[in-house]
């Protein structure tokens, strides 16, 4: 594969500016339509019946009382669903998805695996009647023992969730290596020898709590069947085509029978990449012959969607006294939840790969237990892995007497090095970013008080390419209709329009940018993996090139000359003028050509489906100042600066917004968020009061430093930017707490209680009484 660099820099006319997003007006006036804003005539409301037990066999479901309630139109259980028509659906780049697991997660067939697992669903005239009806569905369970601790789940004799699951290993399936776990091993060199060469070794154990993406909009879907057995679905999702594909499999339909219309989405962060309610609403709609809307309550979202892994990790890293890293040994137990397929792979890959360490063993496990099935949360698995490693790195730097950033500069992989798996590191601004951290005024600003400390952390994440489709239509007045299949999570309609404006050489205001449904655009993979601005932008640039070619043909016709004599100034001048190569005074502007499309062959349109391989990686760093109250353990974040290499910032304010939003999610992960299951295995903090996400009071302004080392795989140098921001904050906070009060935190969240216990342990005081 001869990867020619795609990057073609020029003087940008649109990229790097900060226009106001057109679709923002509907959002500030309350006119934008999100999933719950759908109201159809004759619509029914659905409600899910959920298991209160973390692990149980379903013995009997009696729907008679529910059906008898006035206003109830249908009740379904797992038995209503046909066998799947596809066992495994490809999910891009070798990843794959077990459809049976997804189907069973939507509604249990024989066994429930977590508190909140769906077992039945009802449809009624209004949501209140539906709620009453759901309470009348009688389910008899045989309660089974449950596990919710990753360490317990891999012990011999542990309760096994799935008897038919064959735990595998990356590239080498093994038989029943461990109960409830698949295994991923990465290694290089010889760790035993490596540790012998180390002058300083730090070894620590960590536990991190399960956390949720916390999108403010819950999951909502509305399904309606047309009389010709065609299903329309209105839903808020990161991937309309994924919803369509999963529904086709679960309902045993053809792909062409389903149309998914993506509504505006109120947050996803990776958690809205799969079906939950959609198959249930579709089945209820089929049974009743009426449209059915279903919405999750907040408690259902927390209990029964896809949080990010809690973990148990052991980290041992060794370096020479001059700071050169020589060996690392990681044991990582990452929760997979009720079904296999958690983020151990990306977590393990991102744990160490930003450093050159010649001798490495990473022993990673994808562990099933009685919690909801784990789903991506921004950079899946990376935050957990980064926390456990960056805090140990910090400790090593201190023991070597080296500045924290200098230690990282000494060991960081740069272009020309190889990642742990052997992949060469492409050009990325690692050195520039770490030096920017050191040079930043925040790095040396006075802390200004006792119990204050400053910590840094450095992070790496991949990013995805995958398939995106777009269409560009030139209107007779020269304006442009741009349509893509990419759900717009936070303003990509604008950043994609900006790339189109740049590529076509037309004013940004002339472009109408929209998100199409699955009937109206070519296949487009989900808006995940920081791929939208990169991959969909790539498709748009290619489509724009086709448009320019067609316009050139029209000009050639108008001038009655050969198309080889027609130049377009879009790349040299940023605007699309068409010039006669032999007579520079003969020019036509884009709009003038558009006005004559009709007489020269009709409208000009182009579509493009791209699967660009040249994904740039992502790097980020944080400087964080905290103040710790030694009496309460409360940690206040005083100042926070986020650094990131984004390749090319299309809309710098949107890039900053990604950095700030991800940073604050990371701060919540660091300080206050975590699932708490009680002794019966039920989620005790299933409300936003007790699942404590940051408020405006909890965080300061987040300063951002945007760096740009172009990604050579994209014509404009763009790398994904949306995910890496969530990776370094917990480590940065932990490293700051150490410098503030001298304790190394090894648990997340670093809640006041956790910090207090660490302080007491340091002072030799007895630990508090643990509440069971």
């Amino acid at each position: 594969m001869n990867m020619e660099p795609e990057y073609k820099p020029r003087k940008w006319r649109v990229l790097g500016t900060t226009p106001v997003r057109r679709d923002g007006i509907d959002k500030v006036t309350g006119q934008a339509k999100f999933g719950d804003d759908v109201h159809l005539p004759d619509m029914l409301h659905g409600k899910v019946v959920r298991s209160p037990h973390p692990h149980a066999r379903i013995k009997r479901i009696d729907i008679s009382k529910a059906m008898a309630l006035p206003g109830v139109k249908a009740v379904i259980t797992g038995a209503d669903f046909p066998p799947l028509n596809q066992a495994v659906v490809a999910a891009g780049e070798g990843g794959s998805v077990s459809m049976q697991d997804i189907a069973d997660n939507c509604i249990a067939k024989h066994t429930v695996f977590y508190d909140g697992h769906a077992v039945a669903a009802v449809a009624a005239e209004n949501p209140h009647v539906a709620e009453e009806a759901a309470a009348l569905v009688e389910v008899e369970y045989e309660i089974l023992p449950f596990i919710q601790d990753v360490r317990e789940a891999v012990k011999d004799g542990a309760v096994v969730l799935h008897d038919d699951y064959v735990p595998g290993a990356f590239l080498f399936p093994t038989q029943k290596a461990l109960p409830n776990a698949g295994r991923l091993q990465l290694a290089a060199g010889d760790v035993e020898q490596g540790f012998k060469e180390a002058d300083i070794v730090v070894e620590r154990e960590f536990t991190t709590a399960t956390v949720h993406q916390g999108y403010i909009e819950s999951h909502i879907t509305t399904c309606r069947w047309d009389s010709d057995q065609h299903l329309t679905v209105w839903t808020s999702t990161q991937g309309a085509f994924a919803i369509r594909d999963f529904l086709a499999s679960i309902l045993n339909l053809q792909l062409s029978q389903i149309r998914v219309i993506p509504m505006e989405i109120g947050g996803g962060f990776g958690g809205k990449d799969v079906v939950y309610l959609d198959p249930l609403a579709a089945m209820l709609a089929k049974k009743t012959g009426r449209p059915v809307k279903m919405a999750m309550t907040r408690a259902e979202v927390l209990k029964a969607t896809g949080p990010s892994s809690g973990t148990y990790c052991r980290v041992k890293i060794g370096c020479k006294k001059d700071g050169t890293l020589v060996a690392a040994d990681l044991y990582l137990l990452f929760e997979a939840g009720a079904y296999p397929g958690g983020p151990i792979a990306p977590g393990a890959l991102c744990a160490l790969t930003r450093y050159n360490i010649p001798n490495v063993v990473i022993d990673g496990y994808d562990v099933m237990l009685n919690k909801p099935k784990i789903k991506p949360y921004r950079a899946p698995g990376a935050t957990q892995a980064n926390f456990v490693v960056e805090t140990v790195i910090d400790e090593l730097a201190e023991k070597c007497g080296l500045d924290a950033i200098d230690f990282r500069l000494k060991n960081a992989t740069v272009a020309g090095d190889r990642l742990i798996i052997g992949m060469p590191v492409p050009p990325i601004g690692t050195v520039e970013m770490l030096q920017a951290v050191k040079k930043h005024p925040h790095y040396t600003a006075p802390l200004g008080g006792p119990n204050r400390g400053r910590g840094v952390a450095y992070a790496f994440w991949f990013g995805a390419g995958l398939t995106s489709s777009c269409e560009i239509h030139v209107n007779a007045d020269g304006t442009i209709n741009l349509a893509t299949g990419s759900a717009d999570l936070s303003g990509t309609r604008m950043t994609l329009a900006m790339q189109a404006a740049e590529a076509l050489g037309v004013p940004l205001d002339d472009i109408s940018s929209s998100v199409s449904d699955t009937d109206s655009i070519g296949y487009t993979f989900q808006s995940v993996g920081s791929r939208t601005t990169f991959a969909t932008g790539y498709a748009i640039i290619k489509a724009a090139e086709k448009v320019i070619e067609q316009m050139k043909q029209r000009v050639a016709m108008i001038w009655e000359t050969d198309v080889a004599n027609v130049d377009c100034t879009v790349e040299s001048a940023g605007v699309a003028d068409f010039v006669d190569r032999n007579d520079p005074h003969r020019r036509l502007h884009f709009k003038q050509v558009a006005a004559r499309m009709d007489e020269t062959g009709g409208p000009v349109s182009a579509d493009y489906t791209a699967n660009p391989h040249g994904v740039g990686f992502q790097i980020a760093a944080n400087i964080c100042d905290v103040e710790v109250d030694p009496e309460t353990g409360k940690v206040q974040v005083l100042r926070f600066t986020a650094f990131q290499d984004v390749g090319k910032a299309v809309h710098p304010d949107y890039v900053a917004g990604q950095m700030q939003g991800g940073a604050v999610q990371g701060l919540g992960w660091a300080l206050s968020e975590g699932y708490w299951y009680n002794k019966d295995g039920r989620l005790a903090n299933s409300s936003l009061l007790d699942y404590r996400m940051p408020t405006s009071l909890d965080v300061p302004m987040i300063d951002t430093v945007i760096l740009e080392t172009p990604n050579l795989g994209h014509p404009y140098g763009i790398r994904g930017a949306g995910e890496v921001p969530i990776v370094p904050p917990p480590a940065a906070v932990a490293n700051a707490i150490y410098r503030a009060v001298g304790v190394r935190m090894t648990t997340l969240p670093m809640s006041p209680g956790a910090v207090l216990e660490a302080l007491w342990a340091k002072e030799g005081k007895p630990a508090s009484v643990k509440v069971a």
Partner: protein
Amino acid sequence: MASVWIPATMQHLTGGEAVVQASGSTVRELVNRLDEVYPGLKAAIAQDDGRLRPGVAVAVDGYITSLGLFQRIAERSDVQFVPAIGGG
């Protein structure tokens, strides 16, 4: 000859070699050729139906390819088998 990085868990098949050489115009040909020299390698990477095992991706010359075993490779390509990763 293309260079192929062998993950540590498979190095017992290659007598401990971390990087091996082979030629082929596609990744599939490469894997077939390597399997002739190091039996068992192909079974670790591909399923019986000839597709990549779920959870496995292929990187060629620094980029993960969407074409898997169909990916064409150049004279001196650089190939790694990596765990498939997702995003959020």
